[in-house]
């Protein structure tokens, strides 16, 4: 019995809401890997006394990725598609003492909410935004997103995507965020490391996590099997120490995704500029 009880314990128990489990993510989805890594970083920060649980909030928009905010046992809000960042901005303005973490999909954060992402980075407001990039609008069935690499098949591009994708880390870096990194679910320790680091930053911190969606992304490119898709992504990622933003390649076909910390600086944050916190 004791063994079973021990087995039933999960290292992240206490940070998750068991009453919400099992989660809705499909078997083999990369989002669980990413959430696990994010929470391990959060847990370390809590254990160090740097972060307080009751002063941490998770905000999500709408999408498979955004559902993460439902599964964590923190103050959280499920807002509307694309508007998690403005919601978080309002929250942070009124409760500057809180750590506000936004988790959303690429469609949510860089598609329909892309304008807010740009302006939050420009403002350098003290938020951590984690964008899970599965390269499609997954929850609605795998349609073309602004992050879908050129040439790929999706439900709305049955003969391949003719458009060019946004390179989101480059966009956020250009807009002046204090911290910009790209990780992938093929390398969970990197996700954990970047989130841990970002939680200690002032100003706007942005982490792109390239994730795998076997169900609707994989299916359309002929990789319905979760392991095949994860391996296909692994073959395409390259990890670099402090890569230059010009090296932030984002290509699927015969290409590569460069992971690493692109920006790490300490420019005055929005809250410092308006005098809420002393720099």
């Amino acid at each position, binding site marked *: 019995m004791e063994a079973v009880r021990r087995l039933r314990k999960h290292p992240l128990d206490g940070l998750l809401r068991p009453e919400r489990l099992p989660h809705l993510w499909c078997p083999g989805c990369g989002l669980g890997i990413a959430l696990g890594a994010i929470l391990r970083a959060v847990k370390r920060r809590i254990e160090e006394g740097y972060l307080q649980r009751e002063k941490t909030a998770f905000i999500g928009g709408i999408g498979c990725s955004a559902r993460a905010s439902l599964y964590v046992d923190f103050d959280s809000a499920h807002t509307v598609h*694309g508007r998690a960042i403005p919601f978080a901005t309002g929250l942070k303005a009124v409760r500057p003492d809180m750590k506000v973490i936004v988790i959303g999909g690429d469609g949510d954060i860089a598609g329909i909410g892309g304008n807010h992402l740009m302006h939050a980075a420009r403002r350098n407001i003290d938020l951590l935004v984690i964008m899970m990039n599965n390269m499609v609008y997954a929850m609605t*069935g795998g349609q073309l997103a602004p992050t879908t690499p050129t040439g790929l098949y999706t439900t709305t591009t049955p003969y391949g995507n003719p458009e060019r994708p946004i390179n989101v880390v480059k966009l956020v870096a250009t807009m002046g965020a204090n911290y910009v990194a790209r990780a992938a679910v093929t390398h969970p320790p990197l996700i954990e490391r970047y989130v841990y680091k970002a939680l200690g930053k002032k100003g706007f911190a942005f982490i792109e996590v390239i994730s795998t969606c076997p169900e609707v992304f994989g299916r359309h490119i002929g990789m319905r099997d979760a392991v095949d898709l994860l391996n296909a992504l692994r073959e395409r990622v390259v990890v670099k120490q402090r890569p230059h933003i010009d090296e932030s390649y984002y290509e699927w076909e015969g290409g590569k995704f460069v992971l690493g910390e692109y920006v790490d600086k300490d420019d005055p944050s929005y809250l410092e500029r308006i005098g809420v916190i002393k720099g």
Partner: protein
Amino acid sequence: MAGKKKLPLSGNTAIAYAVKAADVDVISAYPITPQTTIVEKLTEFVANGELDAEVIHVESEHSALSAAVGASAAGARVFTASSSQGIALMYEIMFIASSMRLPIVMAMATRALSAPINIWNDHSDFMAASDTGWVMMMAHTNQEAHDDIILAYKIAEHPDVLLPVITAIDGYFMSHTIEPVEPIEREEALKFIPKKVTWSVLDPDNPVTMGPLGTPEWYYEFKRQQHEAMKKAREVFDEATKEFEKVFGRRYEPVEYFMMDDAEYALVAMGSVAGNVKAYIVKEARKRGIKLGLIRVKLFRPFPAEEIMEVISNLKAVGVIDRALAFGSSYGGPLYGDILSAAYTRGVDTPIVNFVAGLGGRPVTFRDIKAMVDATLALDGKTRKDVPKEPYFIGVRE
């Protein structure tokens, strides 16, 4: 037209087939459940070369309708589709489309509005669009959903109308349910809705500015003209449905009457719930000797007040089923609001009661319909003054 080939199509696919037959030039849309498969099917038609249209994969519904406005202003036949939060996000541009008098057609697979987030069916998105200057219809079968698209272009592009049109179906109950549909072929469709630019468009040789400042000296006149155009839309709806019947053999009225010939009581409804009511009338009410009928409102804007009142004035009591709520209003549900004001202005004294049911996908069961019928029958012999001032909230936990 008998003997034509029927295909098993979902409501969404039936719409996509009609859009293909209408030979649209531009499709701009953003994915949202339960609309998404309309546009997915259309992108497949375009990719296969079956439809020569530009598909714009925009980054939000606000952009979807904005791109539709731009394309229509350039003289293209345009289509878009959405649901729920997508409609809410389009709200700003809906007024622009109707005020610029652009004949855009939008299909809506109706779905509840957030919060809390809910992907199931009700009419809160449809009703939120109701005063934006669009002609609005709601279908009841997949064949009707298909035909409505063709009718919509006929009405929208009529030179006396020039208004955008919404054709709605109920999310899931129709969007994802398969029925036999006789698709209209492009050739027949284009004879009925020839591609001709009947509206003012941007033209580099004769430059115009669309939508500039409308000062107090002029703004009001534009609004008055939109009101007139809506009235014309009603005339054109009648002409178009008559011609449609001649060509395609199917007849549509602004209001469908079911077992109303000898009815003493009626329920008024829109969309798929009308099907449940029909079944209840046949299987339960009539067997128990209750002379109940159904009035299904198909055309919602412009509202067919005359004919509904003509029928209602002869009844003992009427119940109106709303699948949305007008919070804080003096009536309750939005459909009831229209029915009540029509009754007042036409001097109809029949007691009319309101039921709010099926919000956020809550099923409307026979037991619910029985409760509505009982409450309607209870008004027999009563007057307007006896009608409850609050709607009955059917099937809700209090």
